[in-house]
């Protein structure tokens, strides 16, 4: 299967209504608060065909928050295994991406350590807009933007020298 065929197949599989299961692996609950806001009228996730489901067996997409505490590892693996394929794992927030807790006897520090992550959404917490964009990227509907961002600002040397 070529890359193009694969992309079309993914778009066909995930282009319709899609069910999301959220998984909290030890987050401070602010990521959950932002995820909850997705269903509020302002962002209205459901107009885009995304729905939250309470059961992993009904889910196409796993939205994982938190630094993956070791006590939750078995539950996380079971949740992932219970999902029917094809499935997508999205790591949400700086904790899940390794920014807040180091790997130690209590936490893995990143979601990657336990689950095969497909999309990473940075932010502490990521805003509902960032989450919407991440979900769009996960199902191949929106383009990834961060690849082309250099994170350098315009270099106004004269002004910089004047400020010193």
């Amino acid at each position, binding site marked *: 299967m070529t890359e193009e065929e694969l992309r079309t197949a993914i778009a066909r599989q995930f282009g319709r209504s899609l069910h999301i299961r959220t998984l909290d692996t030890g987050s401070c609950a602010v990521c959950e608060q932002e995820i909850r806001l997705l269903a509020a009228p302002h962002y209205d996730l459901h107009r885009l065909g995304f729905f939250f489901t309470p059961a992993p067996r009904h889910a196409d997409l796993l939205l994982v928050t938190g630094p993956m505490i070791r006590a939750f590892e078995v539950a996380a693996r079971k949740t992932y295994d219970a999902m029917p394929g094809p499935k997508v794992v999205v790591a949400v927030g700086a904790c899940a991406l*390794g920014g*807040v807790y180091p790997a130690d006897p209590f936490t893995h520090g990143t979601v*990657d350590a336990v689950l095969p992550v497909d999309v*990473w959404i940075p932010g502490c917490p990521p*805003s509902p807009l960032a989450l919407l964009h*991440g979900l769009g990227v996960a199902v191949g509907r929106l383009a990834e*933007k961060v690849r082309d*961002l*250099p*994170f350098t600002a315009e270099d106004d040397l004269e002004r910089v020298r004047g400020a010193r």
Partner: protein
Amino acid sequence: MTLWFVRGLRRGVVTTRYPARPDESARFLPAPPAFRPGALTLAVAGRLAETCPSGALHVVQEEDGGVLVFDVGRCTACGRCAAEAPQAVTSSGAFELAATDRSVLIKRITLRGEEQ
């Protein structure tokens, strides 16, 4: 409802592009920093790397000069680097940061050489 039904029959499409218009609230969101390479000397970059509480910034010495390695995924947009060196750090304003590859989130910013 009827309006959308008629519109759908006429145009064939009832959905809009996403986003229909840029969200005005986006500029109030905390965003990861952007760096001014012209003001980013080795000393300043070292201070920034020490300041960062989430370990998103690292200075790497290479043959052709120093590089500030910025892991956007680990950044919590706390703003401590911008407070530490306001002349070298500003807000990037970027918030749609989702990536399909973890390595895409790791940015390399070339440092300015020492004063000639």
